[in-house]
């Protein structure tokens, strides 16, 4: 089992992080007209490195607090290129481009996963 999990590991983690990032960008777009709202984003590379590098920490005692590779650890505020008077740092163009890129990369991770699963299924069937 763990071999199959390792086989899918990078793209499975990437897919999860891409989804989280999509939701964060959706929040930014939703708050584009709210005065004083500060746009957030995650450092994707650092988050992915953290998620696959450390692996899952085992808890061996009831007193242990489980540690998850959460994207929230890498959450940062966006630096606006042009500041607005109402203190809102959402720039529609920037958010749209980031969202488009995130979507394309989500789809490529999904494609890679699909290809790997197809390969595994073929190997199991032995055709």
């Amino acid at each position, binding site marked *: 089992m763990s071999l199959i999990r390792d086989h899918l590991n990078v793209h499975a983690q990437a897919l999860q992080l891409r989804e989280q990032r999509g939701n964060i960008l959706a*929040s930014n777009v939703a708050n584009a007209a*709210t005065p004083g709202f500060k746009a957030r984003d995650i450092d994707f590379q650092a988050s992915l490195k953290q998620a696959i590098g450390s692996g899952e920490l085992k808890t061996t005692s009831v007193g242990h607090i489980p540690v998850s590779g959460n994207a929230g650890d890498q959450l940062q505020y966006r630096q606006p290129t042009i500041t607005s008077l109402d203190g809102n740092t959402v720039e529609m163009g920037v958010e749209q481009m980031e969202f488009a890129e995130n979507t394309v990369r989500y789809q490529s991770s999904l494609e890679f996963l699909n290809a790997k699963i197809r390969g595994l299924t073929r190997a199991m069937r032995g055709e």
Partner: protein
Amino acid sequence: MAMNVFDISGRAMSAQMLRLNTVASNLANANTVSTNKEDAYRAIRPVFETEYNDQLQQTGLSTVNVTEVVQLDREVTRSFQPDHPLADSEGYIYESAVNTDEEMVEMMEASRQYQNTLEVVSTLRTLMAKTMRMGQ
């Protein structure tokens, strides 16, 4: 309560829709007159506020709340029209304080925001549907 993209976008869209409704109401009352200064129509605006998913703001998820709808503090114009049926004893009427150009800009922005949010939610929904078919 954990938020998902449908909560985020749905509430953002209803906030923008409320904003469009206030614009409609302002434009409808753009040329109304009244007998006294207090009753004259003044433009109304919604007040938006960010609502975070969690108090510590660790997930980065947030949506929009309309906290109240306020009446703008604008000076109404007084004009002398003694033959007007609504004129007061001195012959004056009070015209509503609505700037139609400003309302049109407000309407454009609200509708763009609405479209942007809708586009985001429909893209993410497609991605979810594709993910459901993974491995088939």
